[in-house]
C-alpha cells in the first residue's frame, strides 16, 4: 500500500515537472511557438467516359413512281400493263456526330413496318466509327458521318398519301477506334497516330524529326507519299504500304513482331531493311542501297519475299550461320537461288529477271 502511494506520487510529480518545462520553453520564445505544418498533392483523377452524340435526319420522304403503258389485248379484251416503278427520295440522309471523349461506333439499319414488308431499305453506309472528340474542334468534319437511305421493292397503289412504311435505327456504342483511319500531315500527327495504334494514312510527305518506334499494331498507308526517316518495329504487327521511305541511315528496322512491307520504295545509303528479330514480309517492293552494299540484312529473324521486287545490293548471307531468308513466288531483278526452296519452287531466268514459281 505504501509503495503504491509512493509510486503514484512520484508519477504525479514527474508529470508536473514536464508540464512546467514545456511551459518554460514557450515563455522563452515570447509566448509563441511555431509548429511546422506539411502538405503534399496527390492526384487521383479518373477520366469518366461520356457518350454525347447528335443524330440528325432529313424529312425521309420517298415516292414510288410507276410509269408505263396499257396495251389492249384483243384476245383477252383487257389491257396488258407494261410498267416500271422507280423510287425517289427527299431528305434521305442520316448523320451522326460524335462529341464524346471516346470513339463511338454507329450501325444504321432499316426495318419495314408490318404491311409494307415488300419495301426494303438499304443504307450507303451501314457501319462506321467516329473518333474521339478529344483534341478536336466542335465542328471538326471527321467527327461526323452521313449515310443515305434508299428504298426498293414495290409499293401498293393504294398508298396515295405519305405513309410511314418503316423505321431506320441508329445504334450507338462505345468503340476502341481500331478501324478508324486517322490522317497525318505532319510528323507530330503521324507519331501520335502510331502511338495510339490503328490505321493512319498520310495526306502529304513527312520528314521525321526522329525515328518512329512502333509499339502498337499499326497500318501506315503512305498513299503515294514519302516518309523521310526511319521506322522501327519494336514488337507489334506493323504494315507499311504504298509509298516511299527515304533516309540516309536505313529505312526499316525490325526488332521484334511482324512487319509487312507492301508496295514500298526504300532508298538509303545504309541497309534499307535491317532485321534484328521478328518476321518481315516484303511484297512488291524496291530496295535500294545507294552505296551498293546490302539491301537486306537478316541477323536473327525470318524474312519472306514475294511478288515483284527489285533490290539494288545483295541480300546478306552467311557461310557460318543459317539465315532464315526465304524467297517465294515472284519476279526478281537478281538471282534468288540461294534463298529459294528448290523442293517447292522453280527458278527461271527471263532476260534480266528471274521468275520463281511454285511447283
Amino acid at each position, binding site marked *: 500500500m505504501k509503495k503504491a502511494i509512493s509510486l503514484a506520487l512520484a508519477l504525479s510529480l514527474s508529470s508536473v515537472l514536464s508540464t512546467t518545462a514545456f511551459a518554460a520553453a514557450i515563455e522563452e520564445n515570447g509566448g509563441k511557438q511555431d509548429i511546422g505544418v506539411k502538405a503534399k498533392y496527390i492526384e487521383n483523377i479518373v477520366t*469518366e*467516359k*461520356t*457518350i*454525347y*452524340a*447528335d*443524330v*440528325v*435526319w*432529313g*424529312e*425521309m*420522304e420517298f415516292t414510288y413512281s410507276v410509269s408505263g403503258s396499257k396495251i389492249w389485248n384483243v384476245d383477252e379484251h383487257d389491257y396488258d400493263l407494261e410498267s416500271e416503278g422507280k423510287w425517289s427520295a*427527299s*431528305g434521305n*440522309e*442520316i448523320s451522326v456526330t460524335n*462529341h464524346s471523349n471516346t470513339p463511338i461506333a454507329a450501325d444504321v439499319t432499316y426495318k419495314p413496318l408490318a404491311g409494307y414488308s415488300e419495301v426494303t431499305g438499304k443504307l450507303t453506309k451501314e457501319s462506321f466509327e467516329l473518333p474521339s472528340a478529344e483534341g478536336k474542334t466542335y465542328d471538326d468534319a471527321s467527327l461526323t458521318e452521313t449515310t443515305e437511305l434508299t428504298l426498293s421493292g414495290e409499293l401498293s397503289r393504294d398508298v396515295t398519301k405519305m405513309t*410511314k412504311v*418503316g*423505321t*431506320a*435505327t*441508329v*445504334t*450507338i*456504342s*462505345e468503340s476502341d477506334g481500331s478501324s478508324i483511319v486517322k490522317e497525318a500531315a505532319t510528323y507530330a500527327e503521324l507519331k501520335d497516330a502510331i502511338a495510339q495504334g490503328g490505321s493512319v494514312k498520310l495526306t502529304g510527305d513527312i520528314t521525321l524529326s526522329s525515328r518512329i518506334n512502333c509499339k502498337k499494331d499499326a497500318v501506315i498507308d503512305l498513299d503515294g507519299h514519302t516518309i523521310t526517316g526511319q521506322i522501327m518495329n519494336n514488337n507489334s504487327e506493323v504494315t507499311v504500304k504504298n509509298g516511299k521511305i527515304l533516309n540516309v541511315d536505313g529505312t526499316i528496322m525490325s526488332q521484334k513482331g511482324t512487319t509487312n512491307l507492301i508496295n514500298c520504295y526504300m532508298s538509303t545509303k545504309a541497309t534499307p531493311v535491317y532485321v534484328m528479330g521478328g518476321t518481315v514480309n516484303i511484297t512488291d517492293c524496291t530496295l535500294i542501297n545507294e552505296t551498293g552494299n546490302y539491301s537486306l540484312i537478316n541477323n536473327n529473324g525470318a524474312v519472306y519475299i514475294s511478288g515483284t521486287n527489285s533490290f539494288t545490293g545483295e541480300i546478306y548471307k552467311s557461310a557460318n550461320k543459317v539465315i532464315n531468308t526465304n524467297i517465294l513466288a515472284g519476279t526478281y531483278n537478281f538471282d534468288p537461288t540461294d534463298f529459294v526452296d528448290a523442293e517447292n519452287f522453280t527458278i527461271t531466268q527471263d532476260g534480266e529477271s528471274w521468275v520463281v514459281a511454285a511447283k
Partner: protein
Amino acid sequence: MEKSEKQEKQRRLIIIALIIGMAVCMGVTIWALFFRNTQEQVLIPDYAPQAAEQNAEPLSDNGEKLDVPSGGGGISLEYDSSVNISLADKTAYLNYTHPGRSTQDIVLCIEINGEIVAQSGTIEPGNRLKKLALLDGAEKKLSEGTYTDADFRVLSYDPESGEKAMVDTVAKITVTVEK
C-alpha cells in the same frame, strides 16, 4: 369371389386415376403451348404519350438548336452507359440527358435482351433523367447480375404534331440488377 370383385374395383380406380392424370397433363401442355402469354410485349406508341415523364429534371440549357434539314429532326443524347436496377424499389437508376439542342421530344425505353423493362413518359428537350420506374411485372423477369445485352431505345416525336419520327436511336448500355 369377393376378392376378385375387390381387385376389379381397385383396377378400375387406378384406370380412372390414370385417365384423369393424363387429361390434366394434356390440358397443361395445351395451355402452355397455345394460351400462355410468355411475353407481354410493350407496343411502341405512334404518337407521344400525353403524360410528361415525372422523373425528368429540367436543366438550365439554352443552347442553340441542332441544325436539321427542313422537315427532318435531330436529337442529341448524353448518357452514362452503366445503369443500375433495384428490384426492391422497382426502379432503374441512370444518367440520361436530353439536351436542349434537340428538336424532338423523346420517350426513353430501357431494353434488356430485346424486351422493354422501363418506358418513360414524354421528355422535352432540356431535361435529364436519373431514375425511371420499371414497367409492371418487369422486376419478375430480372434477376441479380449484369446484363450486357441492353440498351436505351430513344423514340423521337415531333413536338408539334406528336407524331413518331422515322428514325429511332439505340444506345448500348450495361445494366446491373441488384436486390
